[in-house]
């Protein structure tokens, strides 16, 4: 393929060393993700999914909506405020502070629309510490959606939801972003929702293929001891 025909690379690593401080997770990573792709990251725990996601985010901070695994919600605040938090950068500080004390009708509507699509409309003004694990996870996803950035980076965003709900939410979320890299553990869901699958093991990409060419058995091999 001619380089000028392909869309510009969104993320690009060539022989990159990734890790935390002195600890190396990826000794030499080669990876390119282009604008418009949806990528599922698979691999056993400790294979480097979260490290890779963090590195991707650092490359394109202003383009990325971020949904980390440790949801990092503010438990004593309402679903409304936790979702609104994703959009803090879009508004002025005084407007944000006002929303904390007394949100306007317009602010309530825009957040309510996100909450509704996640099935959280009923809980909009309830604090997160009073929600179930699945509801909290959907709130974290809502916060990422409300960032309104084109590239989704998410770490197991639907792991606490049942299959059907997970599938529906994931499809809906992907539709709202033009590109995505999402760490997954549900292999079937990964094949069903993403165009490309990258398999990681011990800090190496051992699999990188279009999901249409893969079967569940191919993916299972990633997890064999």
């Amino acid at each position, binding site marked *: 393929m001619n380089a000028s025909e392909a869309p510009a690379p969104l993320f690009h690593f060539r022989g990159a060393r990734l890790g935390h401080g002195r600890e190396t997770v990826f000794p030499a990573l080669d990876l390119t993700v282009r604008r418009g792709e949806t990528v599922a990251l698979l691999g056993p725990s400790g294979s480097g999914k979260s490290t890779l996601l*963090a590195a991707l*985010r650092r490359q394109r901070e202003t383009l990325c909506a*971020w949904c980390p695994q440790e949801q*990092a919600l503010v438990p*004593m*605040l309402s679903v409304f405020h936790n979702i609104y938090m994703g959009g*803090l950068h879009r508004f002025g500080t005084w407007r944000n502070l006002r929303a904390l004390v007394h949100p306007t*009708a317009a602010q309530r509507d825009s957040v309510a629309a996100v909450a509704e699509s996640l099935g959280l409309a009923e809980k909009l003004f309830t604090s997160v510490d009073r929600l179930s694990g699945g509801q909290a996870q959907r709130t974290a996803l809502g916060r990422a959606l409300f960032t309104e950035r084109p590239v989704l980076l998410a770490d197991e965003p639907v792991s606490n939801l049942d299959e059907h709900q997970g599938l529906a939410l994931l499809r809906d979320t992907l539709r709202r972003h033009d590109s995505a890299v999402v760490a997954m553990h549900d292999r079937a869901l990964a094949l069903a929702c993403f165009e490309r699958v990258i398999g990681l093991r011990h800090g190496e990409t051992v699999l990188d293929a279009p999901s249409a060419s893969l079967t569940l058995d191919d993916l299972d091999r990633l997890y064999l001891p």
Partner: protein
Amino acid sequence: MNRPAPTFTTTAAGWRRASGWLGLAGLIAFACADLEVTRGDPGEEMMRVGLGLLRPDFLATEGLGRALANTLAFAFQGVALGAAAGFLLALFWHRRAVRAGAASVRAVHELFWGLLLMQVTGLSTLTGVLAIALPYAGIFAKVFGEFLEEADPAPAVALPDDRRRLGRFFYARLPLIWASCKAYTGYRLECALRASAILGFIGLPTLGFHLETAFREGHYGEGAALLYLLFLLVLTLRFWLRPLLLPVYLLAALSWAPPVWTGSLQTLVRFVTEDLVPAPLKNDGGVAELWVWLGTLWSEQIGPGVWHTLVLGLAALLLTALLALVLFPLRSPLFGNRVSRGLGHFILVVLRTTPEFFLAFFFLIMLGPSMLPGILALGLHTGAIIAHLTARFSEGLTLRDDSPRGLNRYAFEVLPRLYPNFLAFLLYRWEIIMRETAVLGILGIHTLGFYIDSSVAEFRFDRTLVLILATVGLNLGVDAFSRWLRGRLRLSTRGQPVE
């Protein structure tokens, strides 16, 4: 489009409501408080104090070494005695009478104990030591008692049941709390150094005595030097306070200033059986006369004293809260840069280390007598303490990688997460604010301490006793309310230092 505002059923909403009511009470207190600057030219006096602080004169005070040694000696002996007594009391912490007794002795400020004891033991080492040891015994009893309550009971339960309870205590209970007790005693020694210095204000020969004289006479450079010496003592404490050296320090303290009883038993008996007895009873008046006496005392002294103490305390609580919220980001790793954090740390250390009583005294000199110096002093000192504790707590927060910065981070991510701790710190400190508010009266601010000090000056110790009992009642009341509120809001600072 005007829709009704939504009702938030959030955990934060409960804290917000409680804070709203406390804030309202604080605002009302500010409205009622006498905030007048009575000094003609406060700016000029402030300049002179500021110049003094910049040019400390360490050679001006005669007998400086003696005052320094006394300050240390009183503090060491007071803490040793208080810790020992408190430890014994803590063993019986499950008894209601012990808890009530401990609460009462610690509700009386060191300075009030000093004023009372002085009538029997004079201006002696014993007075200084006991003035510290008595309230500290109550504080130690509470803290050690709570350590014991919260310690894991499993090791003691696992031992075979026999009657040798003492052995079980030393093997299965004490080791669990030993480290906490040691750390807390070290912290208390720091407080005792400040208390010992403050006792100089009622005439005991410690740093505070010279400091008061120097500032009152306008020798600000000399006063500043004394203040810096106190800083030096407190801030270097952790370098020279070593467990192995403790016996040496204690022996040195005892030999420098032996706490010998110099008064006569007669004085003690007369003081308790005559001086402290209400005048009408002493003069063989009946109960009716006693009521009249109490009524007059209430309307002339206790009533106004309690009111002023409450007003000043509540206003100081509001200022404390606001200052703590503004100051804690200054030293929290989540905000600012290395320079701003260094500066914040410095400001907080200075404000925390200067006793609120000294701060009030300085403001009083600069602004003249009103409630303003007291409110400023208590607010700054306690605000710095709570800011420090809150900032320390914020070190444990981990924010997500894309968390906002600046004011957005403060309001959305940080404040909600540490608000329960902040509120708990504040409510715990309220009792201490009230204790200190009462004692500021000795400086001439019309809180309960003012009437206590005047009654001592007039040798009307029967009044002194009733007034001190009133401060105890007020403290216990505020403490009970604060405990109720903390329970209602489910706030706890378990495992974190608050005093």
